[in-house]
C-alpha cells in the first residue's frame, strides 16, 4: 500500500495491481476455478469456504459466463464471458471498507478527485440459497464493485461472517483507462512488442458463444445433462462417509459441488435458449438451490468446514 501506484495502461495491469495489493494484505492468491460459472461467488473458495468456523482469506480472478448477456461483442459494455475479481475474508475484518478503498487507490484511482459512495444493495443468490447485506460501490456514479457481508450460504447461517468483494474487471478497467467500448481496451501494454486489445482476444469468441448460446445449443442434450448433474450430485453425497478402500473418512463435497455448478450453468444456457418459462424458471432455480444446500450441509461435516471428531 506504500508505493505510489503508476497509472495503469492496460486491462492486465489493473488485474496485476489488484493481485499485488491483495497479496500484500495477506490474502492467498488463488487461481480461477476450472469450470464454467456465472460469477466468482461460485468458486468453492467462496461458496464453500464461507461456511464453517475456519478462518479464510483468498483472492482470485474468475472468468464468468452469463449466456443471456451475449451481444456478439458489439455492445460496449455487455459480454457473455467476462472477468470478476473476487476477495473473500473470514471473519470480515473491521477495516474491510478501508482495505477496499486502498485497492481502488492501488489501481490508480486518485481518491481525492473522485466521489466514492456505498449505496445500499442487498445481495441474494437464489441458486446458492445465499444472501448478504452490503452495498454497490459507486465511483462518480458508476458501480465499480459489490461489497457484501455474507449472512447465509447454502441455507446455512454464516458464523463467522465473511466479507466478500467483487469487482467487475472490464467495467472497472474501462473506467480507469478511459475506454468507451470494451473491445477497444488494451489488453496488454499498448507499447508492447505485440499490443493486443480486448477485441483481439475476445471478439471472435463472443460471436461464437453468442450464436451457440442463443441458437445452437442442443436443448434436449442440455435438459438431459441437467438431470444427470442433479442425480450425480445427490448420488455422490449419498455415499457413506467412510471410504471402504482407504478406511478414511472422506466426504466428497467438492466433486458433488462440481455437479451443482454444472447444473447451474446448464440452467443458464437453457435460459438463454429461451426454453424455460417463467414458472419453470422458479422450479429449476429451486432444484439447483437444493443441490447447493446439500453441498453446504456436507461441507460443514468436513475438516475444512470446521468439523472435529470431538465435537461430533
Amino acid at each position: 500500500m506504500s508505493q505510489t501506484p503508476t497509472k495503469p495502461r492496460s486491462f492486465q495491469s489493473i488485474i496485476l495491481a489488484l493481485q499485488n495489493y491483495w497479496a500484500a494484505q495477506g490474502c492467498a492468491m488463488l487461481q480461477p476455478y476450472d469450470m464454467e460459472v456465472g460469477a466468482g461467488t461460485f468458486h468453492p473458495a467462496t461458496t464453500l469456504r464461507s461456511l464453517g468456523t475456519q478462518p479464510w482469506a483468498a483472492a482470485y480472478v474468475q472468468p464468468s459466463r452469463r449466456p443471456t448477456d451475449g451481444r456478439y461483442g458489439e455492445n460496449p459494455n455487455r459480454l457473455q464471458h467476462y472477468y470478476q475479481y473476487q476477495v473473500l475474508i473470514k471473519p470480515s475484518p473491521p477495516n474491510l471498507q478501508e482495505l477496499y478503498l486502498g485497492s481502488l487507490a492501488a489501481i490508480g484511482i486518485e481518491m481525492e478527485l473522485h466521489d466514492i459512495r456505498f449505496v445500499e444493495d442487498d445481495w441474494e443468490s437464489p441458486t446458492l440459497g445465499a444472501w448478504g447485506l452490503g452495498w454497490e460501490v459507486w465511483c462518480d456514479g458508476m458501480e465499480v464493485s459489490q461489497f457484501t457481508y455474507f449472512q447465509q450460504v447454502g441455507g446455512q447461517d454464516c458464523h463467522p461472517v465473511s466479507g466478500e468483494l467483487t469487482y467487475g474487471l472490464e467495467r472497472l478497467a474501462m473506467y480507469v483507462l478511459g475506454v468507451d467500448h470494451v473491445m477497444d481496451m488494451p489488453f496488454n501494454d499498448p507499447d508492447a512488442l505485440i499490443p493486443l486489445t480486448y477485441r483481439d482476444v475476445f471478439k471472435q469468441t463472443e460471436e461464437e458463444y453468442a450464436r451457440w448460446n442463443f441458437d445452437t445449443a442442443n436443448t434436449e442434450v442440455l435438459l438431459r445433462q441437467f438431470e444427470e448433474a442433479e442425480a450425480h450430485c445427490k448420488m455422490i453425497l449419498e455415499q457413506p462417509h467412510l471410504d471402504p478402500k482407504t478406511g478414511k473418512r472422506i466426504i466428497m463435497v467438492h466433486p458433488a459441488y462440481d455437479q451443482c455448478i454444472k447444473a447451474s450453468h446448464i440452467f443458464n444456457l437453457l435460459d438463454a435458449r429461451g426454453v424455460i418459462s417463467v414458472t419453470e424458471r422458479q422450479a429449476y432455480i429451486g432444484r439447483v438451490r437444493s443441490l447447493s444446500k446439500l453441498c453446504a450441509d456436507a461441507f460443514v461435516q468436513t475438516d475444512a468446514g470446521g468439523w472435529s471428531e470431538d465435537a461430533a
Partner: protein
Amino acid sequence: MSDLLIELFSEEIPARMQARAAQDLQKLVTNGLVEAGLTYASAAAFSTPRRLALTVEGMLDASPAVVEERKGPKADAPEKAIEGFLRGAGLTRDQLEERDTPKGKILFAKINKPGRPAAEIVAEVLETTIRNFPWPKSMRWGSGSLKWVRPLHSIVCILTGEDGAEIVPMEIDGIQSGDITYGHRFLAPDVIKVTGFEDYEAKLARAKVVLRADARAETILNDANNLAFASGMEVVEDAGLLAEVAGLVEWPVVLMGNIADDFLGLPPEVLQTSMKEHQKFFSVRNPKTGRIERFITVANRTTADEGATILAGNEKVLSARLADAKFFWENDLRVATSKDGMATWVKALENVTFHNKLGTQAELIERMAVLAGELAPMVGAKKEEAMEAARVAKADLSSEMVYEFPELQGLMGRYYASAAGMSDAIAAAAQEHYAPLGPSDDVPTAPVSVAVALAEKIDKLTGFWAIDEKPTGSKDPFALRRAALGVIRILVENELVFSFSAVVHTSYAKIINSVVNTIAVFKEHKIGSGDTAYETYSLVGGLDELDGGLVDEILFTEFKGRQEGVGHHEGTWVGDDKATLRQLDSVEKIKADLLSFLHDRLKVYLKDQGIRHDIIDACIAMEGNDDLTLLVKRARALSETLKTDDGENLIQGFKRANNILTQAEEADGVEYSYGADVKFAETDEERALFKALDDAEAVITPAMEKQDFTTAMSAMADLRGPVDAFFDAVQVNSDNPTVRRNRLNLLSRIRSICSSVADLTLITG
C-alpha cells in the same frame, strides 16, 4: 439536570432507513429512560449515512427513590408461604406490617427502592435499545453475534452536567462507549472528541458532516435551484429523490451536468426515469423548449478540481445508460412500426404467465378484448376500436424499455401505439387502462379507455374470485380492493349505467376457459372435446357438477399417463389441480360474492363523501343494486332528503306506520296490503293523508321509472306533514273493525310508497 448525547457510528446505513431509525432511536431510548424514572425536558434525533445521533436535554441526574408496597400472604399462612414472600421482597419477618382487612390479618411489605444514577440507567437502556433495534433488515459481521444494519464501529455516550462531560461507561460486543467520533470519510477522517451536543454538531460541521438531514436536503434543493436558474433552467421537483439523496451524503455538493444531444429526443419520462432510478440524478428542464436537457447530481465531497472529474465521470455513466435507453427505444419503435407491429409483442406474451391458474398474459389480453368489446356499446365506444385497444394495451410489457423500466408500462405503450399509427383513443387507452391507481388518481373518461380499464379490472376481480384468491384481512397481494374501487369510480364518476353482474357473467365464461387450459392434463390428453366440454359446463353453472365424474376421469387418465411415463410432472400437482377444479364456484355464487365485495368498497367510498352506512344499506336492499351508478344516485338522493327536516321526520312517521302495521299483521296473522278506501275515513286528517298519498304516488311512480330519485324522494318527504297530522289526530286501532282495517291498509300504502324508493327500515336513528 444533565444532557445526554448518544451517537451510533457505523458503516453506511441505507438511505431509505435513516429517518425511521433516528425516530426509533429517540423513541426507544426516551421511553426506556422515562420508564426507569428519568424524565427529561426535550429530545431530538438525527441521521447521516454513517451515524444515528440522539440528544436528550434537561434529564434528571438520578431516578427518584420510590417506596413500593407489596401485599403478602395472611399472617397465619404456612411458614413456607411467608418465607417465600420474604425472599421475594428481600426483607425479614420483623420488617413486615400486619394489617386487619375484611379477609383477616394480612402481611404487607414496604420495599424502599433507592434512586439510581442516570449513567447506570442510560447504559442499560442503550444496550437494550441497540440489541433490540427494529431495523427492517439487520446483519452480523466478523466473529460477533450483535446485529446492526451494517457493522457498528463506535458509540458516543456522554452525560453533560454543570461539572462537564462524563462518559457513560458501557460495552456491547466489544465496542466500548466513549466520547470520540469521526468526521467525513474522505474530507476529515480524523478522531473528534466531543463534550456535548452543541460541541458535537459544531465539530462535525467543521469536519464536513452536516448532521441534520433536513439541512442537507435544503442545501441540495437551494443549490440545485440556483445552479439551474443561473442557466435559465428549472429543476424538476422530486421530494422522494431529494430525501433519498440527502441520505446518501454527509457533505452535499451539487453539480450540474449536460445530457448529450443524442439523447434529447428520448421521451422526457424515459430520461427522467433512467436518471433517477439508476443514477439518483435530478432532471433539469429548459422552460423554453420544455425538454429535459441537463441533470443535477449530488456528490459527497468537494475536490480540488471543483468537481470536474466527478461530473465528467457521471456524464460518462449517464451516456452509457442513455445509450442503452436509446437502443431500447429505437428497437421498440422498429418493432412497433414493423409489418406485424405490436402484435409481435402480444405474441411474445403467450410465454409470460399472468397467474399460474389464470393463464398467460396473452390469454388475459384476449379475455380483456372480448370483455372490452361487450362493454363498448355501454360506455359509448366503438366495439372494434375498444377490442383493438385492449389487444394493444399491454403489448408494451414485451418491449425492451418496459423490461428495463417497469414503471414506464402503459406510457411506453401509448408512445408505441401512436408510432404504429393507431388512433389517439387506442394509444391513450394503453396508458389510461391502468387507472385509477389510487383514490386520488384521475379516472379515465375517454370511452375506449373506460372500456379497456373496466375490462382489465373486472377480469381481474372475476378471475381471482373464481380461483378463490380473495383478499383477506390485511392481505391483498393482487390489489383487488384497488381494482374494485377502480371499477366503482370509473362507473360512478362517468355515470355509466349497466348491470355489473351481467358483465361478470360474461367475464366468468372466459376465465373458466383459461383456468381449465392451465391444467396440464388438458393440454396433454385432450379428454373428450376438451375445452368445449368445460365451456359448456362452466356456462351452466360452474364446475360443481363435475365433482364425481369428469374431474376424476381426468385425474385417472393423468395417473395412468404417469405410470406409463407419459407425464413428466413432479410432486403433488395432481392433487392441487383437483382442488383447483373443485374450488371453482358457480357463476351465480361468484356474481353474488363479488357484488357484495363491491358494495363493501362502495360503502367506504361513499362514507368518505359523507354518506352514512345505513343509507347505503337501505339502497343496496333495493332491486337493481348491481347498477352502481344508480345505487349511488339513489344513496345520494336519500342522503340529501334525510338532511332535510321533512325527510328526517318522515322517516319517524314511516317507522311508526311500519311498527303499528307489523304488530297488527303479527297479531292478526294477515297482511294488510290492499283495499284502503277513502269512504271509510272518519277524520279530515285521514282524508288528507289519502289525498297526499295519491298525489305522492302520482309523482313517485313515474319519477322512479325515470330513475329520478331526487324528485321521487322529495315527493316522499312531502308526505311528512299529512303523516304527522294523521298520527296526531287519529287512533289507528279503532273499535270499529272496518275502520281499523281500513286504517291499517292506509298505513300499508305509506309503507309501500316509501319502500319504493329505498328500504327505509334499515335507516337507523
